């Protein structure tokens, strides 16, 4: 019998399908196409090709090197095809019954290494530097009053909307509105808190540790689980074990531990399904500088818990999912978890 499972935070239902069930090793491998460079094409993110990107916003540089020249360790540039930009005004206006505004915001690319490394294969030192740069960028974007929320993500592989260049990088988008999905999640967490006076994510972590069967890995400060109502096979969420709603206020001493758990999750998952396309999305609390509106987010520091969602794109989202917001997952998360946990790296 198939089972319907409900995500306790936003109330999304998932059908864990038994009729269409697949074994963890039935998802094939090499789901990511080879990197293809056209003739004479060069990677705009490599050291020496600084002129191929828009002028840099920020860079960690060796002493004496000038902006937009070689000699950097981590470099932040505006996106070559930005979805939102920092120039201009928001200019909210109406068109009949519709609302419109300009694409004011920010869209930055954090290049994680001057050398051409694929995702999550940069050195530990480079990762720590990158994480610090991302945190600094979020703090800087907080100063722009137009930006309400910062979305940090990675797209890898064509199926996940990733580009054809495999130079490890992270995208940051500062949005001028609080996004619908974020609001849904915040509202769900607040509803639970109002009822129980506890953080739903903390409760979930405790329950998962007790049950054990959906815990992929644990480090000193973090835990990786296959969520109970996983939408996708091998979906993984990573939480800090200590309650905190803002990613950018993370204790920077915990970054190496954060890297450890990411490496375990990606290393082991790849062991099971090979290289796979994915979206990696940070879920964190919005900026809260608007004092007048604070009432709405009054308990956010207690009710919300930042985390990472890794969504492998192995199945196709079809009409049913679009129409219903219901997902069909052919792999029970307990089985995905078991196979990943037991993989040896």
């Amino acid at each position, binding site marked *: 019998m198939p089972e319907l499972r409900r995500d306790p935070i936003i109330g999304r239902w998932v059908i864990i399908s038994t009729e269409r069930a697949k074994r963890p090793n039935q998802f094939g491998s090499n789901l990511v196409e080879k990197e293809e460079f056209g003739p004479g094409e060069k990677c705009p993110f490599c050291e020496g090709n600084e002129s191929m990107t828009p002028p840099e916003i920020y860079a960690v540089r060796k002493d004496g090197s000038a902006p937009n020249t070689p000699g950097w360790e981590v470099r932040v540039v505006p996106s070559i095809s930005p979805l939102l930009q920092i120039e201009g005004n928001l200019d909210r206006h109406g068109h009949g019954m519709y609302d419109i505004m300009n694409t004011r915001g920010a869209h930055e690319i954090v290049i994680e290494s001057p050398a051409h490394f694929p995702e999550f294969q940069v050195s530990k030192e480079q990762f720590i530097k990158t994480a610090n740069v991302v945190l600094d960028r979020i703090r800087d974007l907080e100063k722009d009053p137009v930006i309400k929320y910062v979305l940090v993500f990675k797209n890898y592989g064509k199926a996940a909307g990733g580009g054809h260049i495999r130079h490890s990088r992270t995208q940051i988008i500062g949005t001028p509105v609080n996004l619908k999905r974020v609001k849904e999640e915040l509202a769900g967490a607040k509803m639970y808190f109002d009822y129980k006076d506890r953080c739903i994510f903390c*409760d979930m972590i405790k329950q998962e540790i007790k049950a054990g069967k959906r815990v992929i890995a644990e480090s000193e400060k973090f835990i990786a689980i296959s969520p*109970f109502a996983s939408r996708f096979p091998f979906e993984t969420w990573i939480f800090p074990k200590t309650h905190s709603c803002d990613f950018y206020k993370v204790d920077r001493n915990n970054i190496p531990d954060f890297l450890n758990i990411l490496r375990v999750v990606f290393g082991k998952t790849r062991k099971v399904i090979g290289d796979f396309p994915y979206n990696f999305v940070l879920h964190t609390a919005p900026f809260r500088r608007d004092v007048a509106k604070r009432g709405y987010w009054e308990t956010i520091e207690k009710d919300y818990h930042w985390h990472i969602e890794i969504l492998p794109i192995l199945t196709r989202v079809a*009409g049913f999912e679009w*129409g219903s917001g219901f997902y069909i997952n052919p792999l029970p998360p307990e089985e995905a978890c078991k196979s990943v946990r037991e993989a040896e790296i």
Partner: protein
Amino acid sequence: MNELRRDPITGRWTIVFLNKITPPSGFAVEPHVKSKGNCPFCWGNEAMTPPEIIAHRSSGRENGPNWSVRVVPNKFPALRIEGELNKEGIGVFDTMNGIGAHEVIVDTPDHFKDMADLSFAETEEVVWAYLARSVDLRRDKRFKYILIFKNYGKSAGASLEHPHSQLIALPIVPKRVQEEIDGAAKYYDYKERCVFCDMIREELTDKDRIIYNDDKFVAFCPYVSRFAYEVWILPKKHMSDFIDMGRDDVPCFAKALRNSLAMMKGLLGDPSYNFIIHTSPINGHERVDYHWHVEIMPKLSKVAGFEWGSGFYIDPVPPEVAAKNLLSVKVEDK
């Protein structure tokens, strides 16, 4: 400068590209290589499916050939029809057993045609099958919602190449549907008008996004399209439930649907797509604040992390341009 547009019903935002607009030929459309083989949806292979639920047949017997539309249970159902609904909690989590109905409507016996290639009369037969199944399934008290949709092409999630639609009866009202209903109800509370009726008036005034318009139905590329070449079809008369369609509405709806798909196919070269009939939950008859409609979403670009994480969409073709391009296609009037 590009534009951010907000959907007045659900409040989701879309980034519409106004500068770098992708031309119709600029999308990588996957080829639909049809091999036929031993297809369970072709005439003569009726025994390969579970026994049929209904079929339109000019002659011959049940579960034999000579049908024009055939409805069968899905061989690999996402939900199962047998059993009692059972809800239970495990700590913070909730579960339910997978009760529901999952049926397949085989649109045509012709393996190599899609709905875009059917005649108006053939399309109408498919619509009648949707209606008949909807009416029948809503007698089952366990069900709250009936979702009718079509996946065409691999990247839209179709696993069989023979053109077919699907119907799923669900024990709960799905989240997206509820969101839409809540959004429409909120608008009604504020304005005392149906948001969809307002949208139809607005589109008919603006004119530049309309691709089909007759006495009873209108089709347009919505002002806040989430996808390039997204098309919505709505009955002009306020009607909350798909099954409230009258006998004279059905041919007009079939024509609007077939023509919209034919324009898409003519312009974009047989793209994969999903269409979904958005209707009110069972027993939502005569709701003043909701209006049934169809949403057609061609699968031309991938949804990436940004959309997942934000519920924000990116549309590389402004709907005004999409409508103009679609209208340039001549479709067969039969």
